[in-house]
């Protein structure tokens, strides 16, 4: 195998960075929920790591990327514009082939590992819109099916440029620009989030009870982990340790910084005070918007994109109160809106000054062609994901049920779906003054005997 060691090392590191985004997202979302549902919120992210990793090895990679990098072994590429192919070889071919342009080749299995992490975080993003009220088993089934019939094909549409000119996705072939997943990840997840919060309905007490974020430091911790991991997401999508990765890295940083500031400025003007949750949300909105665009903009136009995304998303999160849908943690206001902004912005500001492979946008002499393509891409991904998620959500609701009982929801989903609570609120037990419980179930008697033997 003739591989580029530097590129391979960067892609392996990027894969680990992108994986970390999902636990980061769990903290971001977990902090935004109320204390009684924080574990369930975090579990909805963690379960996607479990489920999607297995799907990816079984059939996900080939369904999304067809014969990527294996054209010599299986030419011609059997993929079409809508989906890859089902090889059922369990990544065996990927383990023995290479992927990428001459000189920048990496082992195909490394590319597969990198793309797996994107497939993991995309369904996890959806979970924010259905906080506090979703049956865990139903969510797991939804994540399995949605990832299979929506994410894998859409990733193929956008990311798979095929091999030797054949087998690419229809949007990739058509010249749509999406460097790291503004359409396939963010619009895709945002559309499904909208569908699900409509299917599931509002939380009990929406717009009436206080639903304050229970742990704002968690929100900031999660935003920090997401930001850190996002360098793997964006700069890693260069699939090489080269100049383009550097451009994506720097654009990601400045756009995110600008969005953080913009969100705080909106809050200062509108509410009188800049907030910590606003800083964290602004950063995420900037990261979302720069994702499709990071390799096609100059650093200056990236800052402008960040300013637009931060301020528009800060206003968009208020829409749910006006329109009456309960997108609990603002997946639509941040990911759908941010993704659309980044996707369309390319139609105006994409430039080949910085990346020879880029198509020029409207303001760089390229006319309106790219803008039209970007709009079609955003719209088709939105329509497909929304429709499938809505139908799938409806079927789950009608069969096994998608929501927990209202008693369980009021008492707390953590206790009712997982038999756990995130926090020990009985302050006396931490001092040892009054034991707050005892082992009663499996192994209870045995453990008690042991602890007595230890003098405990």
């Amino acid at each position, binding site marked *: 195998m003739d591989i580029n060691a530097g590129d391979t090392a960067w892609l392996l590191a990027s894969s680990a960075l992108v994986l970390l985004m999902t636990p980061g997202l769990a903290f971001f979302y977990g902090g935004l929920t109320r204390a009684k549902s924080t574990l369930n919120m975090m579990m909805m992210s963690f379960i996607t790591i479990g489920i999607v990793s297995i799907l990816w090895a079984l059939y996900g990679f080939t369904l999304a990327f067809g014969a990527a990098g294996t054209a010599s072994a299986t030419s011609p590429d059997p993929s079409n514009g809508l989906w890859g192919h089902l090889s059922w070889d369990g990544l065996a071919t990927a383990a023995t082939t290479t992927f990428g342009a001459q000189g920048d080749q990496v082992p195909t299995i490394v590319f597969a590992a990198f793309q797996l992490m994107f497939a993991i975080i995309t369904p996890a993003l959806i979970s924010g819109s259905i906080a506090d009220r979703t049956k865990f088993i139903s969510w797991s089934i939804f994540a399995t099916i949605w990832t299979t019939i929506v994410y894998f094909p859409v990733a193929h549409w956008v990311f798979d440029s095929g091999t030797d000119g054949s087998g690419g996705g229809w949007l990739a072939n058509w010249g749509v620009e999406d460097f790291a997943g503004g359409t396939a990840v963010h619009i895709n997840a945002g559309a499904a989030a909208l569908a699900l919060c409509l299917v599931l309905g509002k939380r009990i007490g929406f717009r009436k009870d*206080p*639903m*304050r*974020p229970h742990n704002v430091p968690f929100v900031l911790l999660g935003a920090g982990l997401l930001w850190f991991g996002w360098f793997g997401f964006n700069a890693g999508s260069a699939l090489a340790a080269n100049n383009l990765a550097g451009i994506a890295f720097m654009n990601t940083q400045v756009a995110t910084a600008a969005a953080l500031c913009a969100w705080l400025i909106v*809050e200062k003007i*509108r*509410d009188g*005070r800049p*907030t910590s*949750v*606003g800083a964290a*949300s602004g950063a995420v909105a900037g990261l979302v918007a720069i994702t499709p665009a990071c390799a096609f903009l100059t650093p200056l136009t990236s800052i402008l994109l960040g300013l637009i995304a931060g301020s528009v998303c*800060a206003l968009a*999160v*208020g829409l749910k*109160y006006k329109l009456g849908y309960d997108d609990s943690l*603002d997946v639509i206001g941040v990911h759908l809106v941010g993704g659309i902004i980044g996707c369309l912005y390319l139609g105006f500001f994409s430039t080949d000054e910085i990346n020879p492979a880029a198509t020029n946008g409207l303001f760089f002499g390229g006319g309106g062609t790219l803008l039209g393509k970007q709009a079609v891409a955003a719209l088709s991904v939105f329509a497909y994901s929304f429709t499938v998620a809505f139908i799938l959500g409806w079927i789950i609701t009608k069969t096994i049920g998608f929501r927990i009982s209202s008693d369980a929801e009021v008492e707390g989903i953590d206790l009712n779906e997982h038999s756990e609570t995130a926090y020990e609120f009985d*302050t006396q037990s931490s001092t040892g003054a009054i034991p707050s419980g005892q082992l009663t179930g499996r192994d209870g008697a045995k453990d008690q005997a042991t602890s007595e033997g230890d003098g405990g």
Partner: protein
Amino acid sequence: MRLVTAVIKPFKLDEVRAALTAFGVQGLTVSQSSGYGRQRGHTEVYRGAEYTVDLVPKVRLEVLVDDDDLDDVVEVIVRAARTGKIGDGKVWSIPVETVIRVRTGERGQEAL
């Protein structure tokens, strides 16, 4: 004997405790509590959505005192806990029938 109960601002606890110790009070009980008085609660804003927080965190402090010391102890607490701003809290006292020290069985004034 009297039980003096004071509900004060949490950050004033150290000053009140120091003032009571200086006065000669031997012990007190402190618990975290929450509530509201004339100041009502406050508002918090998360992603533009405004929430009214009705119950404000307070510290509840309880001291058992001899009848003769009552006025002085109340005065010490009030002086130490005052900021002059709304929400400083309240102090009140009630009569106590008897007090027993658990370790020795002493009753009444000896147990204070």
